[in-house]
Each structure stands twice: as C-alpha cells, then as structure tokens.
C-alpha cells in the first residue's frame, strides 16, 4: 500500500478511495487512469474497483477505450496518469495473480505450437526460469483443455483450429494460470454459438470458485443473461454496479449517445429485468 503523509488523509473522505477500505475487498482497483494515443485522450481519468467474486462486463461503444482500459490498467501500454492496485499491492508485483486473455487477433496463430503447448504457456510462470514442463504440468494443461471441451484437439496445430476453438484454447490457458483475477478482451468475438455457451459456463464456474472476472463485451443483448455487474465506459467512467440498477436506458444513453435508438434502449434495459 502506498504510504500517505498525514495531510492527505484529510482529503480521504471519499468512500471510493481504495486505501480507505480493506485491500482484501478490492482485487482490482484502478485510480484516475488516463491514456492518450498521439496526444488524443482515449481514456480520461477512469477510476473503478472491480467487485470481488463477480462476473463483470465492460461495455461501451466502439472507441470507448474498453480494451485500452484493460491493457493500460495492467501496465501493458504506457499511460499518462493513474495507477492500479491488486489487493492493495501495485500491479507490477501482482501480475502473477492476474490472467489476461488478449483478443484472439493479438497473436500469430501460424506459430508452430499445438493446443496443449499454448495451454502449457499458462503454467510457465509456476514452472519458473530454465526448467522444462513436467508430466504433471502436461496433465494440468490437459485438464484445463478438458474443462473447455477441447481435450480431443490437444495435439492439433493451433492454426488448424476454428476461431471458436482458438478462443477456447486461450480460455484454457487462462484457467491454467490459476489466478485470482481474470481479465478477458472480447472472448465472444467471432465465436460460434456452442463456444459462446461453453465460455459462459467456464466464466460462471470461475465466479463460483470465488474468482473475480472482468470481460470486455460487445453484445448488449446478452449482458443481462451473462453478467451480474457492468462497467460502462465511453472514454470516461460512465457508471458501474449491479446489472439491475446500472444497465439502464439512461446510462446506456449516456455511454452510447445517439448511436442507439431510444426504442432499442428501452428494449435492452427491460429485456429480462426485474
């Protein structure tokens, strides 16, 4: 935790300040995150703390900085200001507690590796420098593949898998990392219906095990069915909280502005609500 000089404490009457609450309740707290590409702000002073043990969707229009938010919060891209704390510790020391699933397009799928090779990579952190994966590690990796229904494809070259299967492999790799916190960048992008269902199952299982999961999500129709919480972004923090109280046409209007018709908004916020 950051040591504060006494005068600062006078300013700490805001309940959102992560320092004022027990760090154990905040698996992932971001404070004042600002990111700019070519001197154009993409994210503007976003503060957010992910609810522990919940499945949260990050939603917002295109260019709202959803993926940027994940990457900058993890320190993977440079930021102008802001900081991230994981259970009160600076992000750099806590990266091993976090499994990050990048967008599928972020890697070269023509790489000479099989599905199980990729899942094993999730275990490299535990294996440590210089050592080679053991038989036990292979078994763990195979179990992770099993939990996403991919055990039959373990030895398939990753380039020969379908988009949905590749996404499942990525998910299995994240499972192998056995982290406290899961950050996923559009895992549902371009996957088939069966894969979508399988991914949702896995996400629910993670939450049931007490993990905290943050997912960049695109499809507003399914938000109510899949998630318990949301974070609405549009360059700035618009709103966050439980789906019932936050996924409102008012907030959506704020985030999406003129991009969603009002009838659409009403339909969404009432879909399966209350």
């Amino acid at each position, binding site marked *: 935790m950051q040591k504060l000089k006494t005068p600062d404490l006078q300013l700490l009457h805001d309940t959102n300040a992560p320092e004022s609450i027990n760090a154990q309740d905040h698996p992932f707290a971001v404070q004042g995150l600002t990111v700019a590409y070519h001197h154009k*702000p993409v994210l*503007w002073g976003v503060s957010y703390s992910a609810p522990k043990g919940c499945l949260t969707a990050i939603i917002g229009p295109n260019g709202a900085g959803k993926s940027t938010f994940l990457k900058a919060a993890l320190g993977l891209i440079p930021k102008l*200001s802001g*900081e991230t704390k994981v259970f009160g510790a600076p992000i750099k020391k806590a990266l091993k507690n976090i499994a990050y699933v990048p967008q599928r397009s972020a890697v070269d799928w023509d790489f000479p590796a099989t599905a199980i090779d990729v899942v094993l990579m999730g275990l490299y952190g535990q294996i440590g420098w210089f050592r080679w994966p053991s038989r036990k590690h292979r078994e763990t990796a195979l179990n992770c593949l099993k939990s996403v229904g991919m055990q039959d494809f373990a030895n398939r070259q990753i380039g020969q898998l379908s988009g949905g299967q590749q996404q499942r492999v990525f998910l299995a790799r994240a499972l192998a990392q056995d982290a406290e916190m899961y950050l996923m960048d559009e895992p549902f992008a371009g996957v088939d219906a069966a894969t979508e269902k399988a991914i949702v199952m896995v996400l629910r299982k993670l939450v049931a095990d007490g993990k905290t999961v943050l997912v960049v999500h695109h499809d507003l129709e399914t938000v109510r069915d899949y998630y318990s919480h949301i974070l609405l972004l549009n360059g700035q923090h618009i709103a966050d909280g439980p789906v019932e*109280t936050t996924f409102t046409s*008012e*907030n959506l209007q704020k985030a999406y502005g003129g*991009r969603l018709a009002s009838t659409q908004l009403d339909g969404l916020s009432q879909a399966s*609500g209350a």
Partner: protein
Amino acid sequence: MEQFFAALTMSAGYNTALVCVGAALLGAASGAIGVFVLLRKRTLVSDAISHATLPGVALAFIIAQTYFDSGRSLPVLLFGAALSAGIGVLAVDWIKTHTRLTEDAAIGTVLSTFFAVGMVLLTVIQSMSIAGQAGLEGFLLGATSGMLKSEAMTIALAAGLVGLAVVLRMKEFSLLCFDEDFAAASGYNVRWLDRTLLLLLLGVVVIGLKTVGLVLIIALAIIPPVAARFWTDRVPVLVAIAAGIGASGSFIGAAISASAPNMPTGGLIVLVLFSFFVVSLLISPVRGILAAALKHYRFQRIVHLRQGLLAIAHNEPVLEPLTRSILRKGGFMSGDGQPTFKGQSEARLIERDQKLWNLYREIYPEESHALADWSLKPIGQVLPADTVKVLEDELCPHLVVSTETPKGGAI
C-alpha cells in the same frame, strides 16, 4: 581540404563536377521516390532490390564480354542489374503470397540468395581470366574515382528522368499511400501503380550502383524521406524536402570523396545523409525529439492539472505526486494538500466545462471521437459559440440528474 571546397564549388574539373551533379540528381530522385516507399511501409523491399542486382551485373558482364567484347559498357551492366532486380521483386511478392512465410523472411531469402548467386558468378569471372573485370568491384561499395565522362553523363541523365517521372506521378502515388481502397474506387489500377512505384525505386537503385554501391544504395531511398518526415506532414512538401536532403547529402558526400579518392563514395554519402537525419531528429520544430518532448510535457501538464481540478471539484483525494505538485505550483492547492480558494473556484469552472464536454460526447459521439482536443481545452476555445450555447441550454435540466442519481434507477 582545398580540393574538397573546389569540388563543392564545382571548380575541381569538369569530370568531378559532373560526378557530383550526377550524385545530387540521384539523391534527389531516390529521396523523392523513397517518400512513397516509406509511406507504403515497404522500405526494406529496396534492400532486396539492391542485392538482387548483383547476379544481373555479373551475367551481363559475362555475356557482353564473351560475345560482344563490351563487358564494361555501363548501360549493358545496368540493364542486367535491372532485369535480375525485377525478378527479385517478383520473387519477394511470390513468396509472400504463395507460402506461409512473411514479407521479412521473403526479403531476406531473396536478398541473400540472389547475392550469393552473384558472388558465385563473380568468382567465375575472376577465374575466367578475361580482361576488363576490374570495374565490377566498384559496384559493391561505389567508386566515383576514374568514372568516365559518358558514365557520369548517363547516371545524371537517368536520375533526372526518374525524378521527373516521380514528380509527374506524384498525385497518384500520394493517393495510393494515403488510401489504397479509395484509389482503387476512383478508377486507378492500384496494382499497376504499386508496380510503377517499385519500378522507379528499382530505377534509382540500379542507377546508383556505380556511385554508391549496392550495399549502401538503399540508404539513399531510406534516410532522406525519414529525415524529411520530421519537418512536415504534407506529402508534396515531404517530397521536396526529401529530394533536397538527398541531393545536398549526395553532392557533399561525392565532393568529399573527390578530394579523398581512397574513401568509398557510398560510405561518405550515407554518413553525410545520416548527419542530416540526426539534425532533423533533434531540432525539427514539427516532429523532432525536443519539440515532441516539449509537447508531451505540456500535454501531460494540461491533463494532470485538469484531472486535479476535477478531483477537487468532486471532493476526491489527489494521490498522484505529479498532479499534486502541478496543483501546488498553480496555487490551486496549499502545502498541506487542501484546495485553496483559487483552486475551488477554478475547479467549479473546469467541472462545468467537463460537463459540457461530456454532453457533447453524448449527443455527438462521432464528432467528439474525431476531435483531438476533447476535454483538453476549455470548450469555448474549440467549438463554435452557437454549439456551446446549445450544449449549455441542454445542460441545465441534465445537471440535476447527473449529480443526484449517478447510479441511475431501474426502469
């Protein structure tokens, strides 16, 4: 030194002057064509082109020498070079499109294999014990000493022609680099334009072989445009500056080499060009390092100041040391971390400004995303007064909603 100034002022003899002018024309042409190659992000294709000339030069020499006894004829050698370089370019494209290998591997394969074939042929020439092979070595690193008048004339003329062609096709090339799809939609044959571009690049590479040498000729097409890029964002200006840098760098380099005949011309030209690059990188007021650092510094201050003031307005703690120190220096925060009176009032202003900006983003999402200054400057300085007026009118009823129910209510 004296000789250098003599060469520089073109008073060191007709031949030297011709060589220098030829080099300058070559530099101008390659700088100009290099701009488009850089903008197309295909810089290193020129590396494959230059190395792929060697087998052509060697083969042309063997054929011309054995059958016509004219192995040293520069046009013949250059024709051979162009032919094999053309095959090299096609080979790069073929590997890239028909195999799983990526462009970098394709370029590397072509440049090394072609060069190797050329080397084998060169050793064949050496052991064939035919006369007149001495000139071939100059193709590697460039040699202007002992260049014939006719050769210098050929180079100057060809470079001038290529430069002219670039100027004539400037509009089409700009379009190609800026928006390939739009160019195609406007009825241009993009594939053909691309080929023309590479053909002109091939032209300068081949012409430059004798002066700069095949290992370093690509620097002439890379360094001037990269250096020019620091000075401007407009394509015609970019072409002009790149051509200017290329011409003056090559002229000075050739002049130095004329005063010191043992020094390789190519190496000298590249070093002079690099010094231009370094100067541009450092001091250009447009995109140079110093200017960029200053711009970033200012930008960072603006962002931190604004966020600090917003935090004060929302009664949030300011934790970041940089923000705190900026607030203190501006007199918005006292030494003990409490906002001053000035800070409070400035914070109210900024808060209102931010609300207007947020409203703008909500109502006109597309425009606000395209706007570089979104929430960086006071809104009145960026948007026209009537737009701000509309936003202000709009803000009043919203003000109540946005402060009292931040979480919103289920419908």
